[in-house]
């Protein structure tokens, strides 16, 4: 089950591993993505910290860690095919996998309904 941050990242949990990406709404907003500045495996993250930058033709967006932990895997395909995020932001366009250090952080994230509403309100 996916949870969403107010800053448009999603988290999908399996055991202690959180797969993270940006929402379909976010990718649509960014436009054609041309580059993903991926972090390195092994990097420790704090919730809310910027861990990645996604560049489209006309904008660059900071991506914030929705949970704290250590990066155990990065989606290296994004190096050669950043457009994967446009094509399938919430699936094959995942960005990193994090080994969570504090699972309770998931509680403050939104479910799909709440996130949809949040997007509407943001205008």
């Amino acid at each position, binding site marked *: 089950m996916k949870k969403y941050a107010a800053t448009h990242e999603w988290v999908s949990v399996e055991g202690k591993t959180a797969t993270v990406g940006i929402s379909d709404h976010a990718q649509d907003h960014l*436009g*054609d993505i041309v580059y993903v500045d991926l972090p390195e495996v092994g990097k420790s993250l704090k919730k809310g910290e910027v861990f990645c930058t996604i560049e489209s*033709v*006309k904008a660059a967006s900071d991506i914030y860690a929705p949970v704290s932990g250590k990066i155990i895997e990065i989606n290296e395909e994004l190096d050669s095919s*950043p*457009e994967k995020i446009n094509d399938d932001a919430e699936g094959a366009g995942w960005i990193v996998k994090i080994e969570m250090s504090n699972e309770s952080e998931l509680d403050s994230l939104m479910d799909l309904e709440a996130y949809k509403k949040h997007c509407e309100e943001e205008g």
Partner: protein
Amino acid sequence: MTIFDKSTEGRTGFYLPREESYGYEPSDTLPENSVRKESPLLPQLSELQVMRHFTGLSKKNHSVDSGFYPLGSCTMKYNPRLNERIAGLEGFSQIHPYQAEETVQGALEVMYNLQNSLCEITGMDSFTLQPAAGAHGELVGMLLMKKYFELKGENNRRKVIVPDSAHGTNPASAVMAGFEVIEVPSNGNGRVDLGSLEEILDENVAGIMLTNPNTVGLFENEICEIQEMAHKKGALLYYDGANLNAIMGHARPGDMGFDIVHLNLHKTFSTPHGMGGPGSGPVGVKNILKDLLPVPVVRFDGSKFSLDYDLPNSIGKVRSFYGNFGVFLKAYAYILTLGGDGLKRASEMAVLNANYLRARLSKLIPTAYPGLCMHEFVLKGSKLVSEYGVKTLDVAKRLLDYGIHPPTIYFPLIVDEALMVEPTETETKEALDAFADTFERILGEAKDDPNILKAAPQKTAVGRLDEATASRKPKTRWSKDT
């Protein structure tokens, strides 16, 4: 076809005087690894081929010479050819920066006089002509601030305040001088919100960067209050002179209380944009900062002009030599030609032209802010999206089909789907009317068949380009195998 595709080995357009060689070969003195084995791959064409190639390229460009160019914040006024003629005079273009000062008194006099003229126009005490562009001038301004507070021992001043409507070079320049940038929001009237400013203005602020009129074309009428607030906290006030074209002869940033000012000679002072440069970004300061200016400074002792490098507290240099002298000449010639009365008139006509166009266009799409504007104004394209399903970008691209360069789009960031229009004073009423008429026509097209706009441009050398692939897999040079 690129010029390399037209190359044929063995062709050249270049012949030097026939001379005997003295017989020195690089292999005599240079180590082997320092000598080129192959000539660099440059084009090999006849002179006529070169002429045709570049002539062909020129035909694919829009320019001020060819049509209306109402780019907000760029001041695309006519580039007088007198200025080109003067800059091309042998005594100006063929002089070396390291010639003995006695042999370049004319050049130094031009610089000295230009500096003085700019002081008079802006109400500042001293000018440096060294920065090569507006952004370069902003960097100098920020470095001056840094040095100023360093000398005063106020090392806590690490922040610079910038309006949310500011040009991107403002925060970028502040960061290059080691400052942290804090944004101050604009209020509903498009001006700096004083309440918000008060909240963030403390003794850790080195300065505030402002443009006046601001980037939405409005005069910051609370500038006196802002100036007082800043100086009371010991902060400096920086003026981005990009919009000076609105107020020449009517108001001076020095009188408004600004401590540092940069000008864009390639905007306000008619020097040509040259496809993106060279420009020139002179910086003016009040006396408290004059000893910190970049070296050298041009001095006059009553009979002779000279270059003074002896400024122990100078921030140093931001480039080699003295500045874009070739550009100074053009700006200076412009100031001489228009004169004080002409500069004032130019600003008046710039503001009148803008208001006229605003009055006409506001009947078609809403302006971002009500009331009079100065030399430029911002339109809100969001209605286009909601009513016709087309974006500002689509309108811009369709304008290209009519031989008109679109206004600035998507800047400033505080207006959604923005179009920023600056006609400048050198346009006739007919040109303004033609633009308004074309705009109206395009909106009509949007209503009937928005796809016309979305497919635009159709009449230009190329249509909309795939920028995504271009930035994903950048191909930034020609190579044989492609």
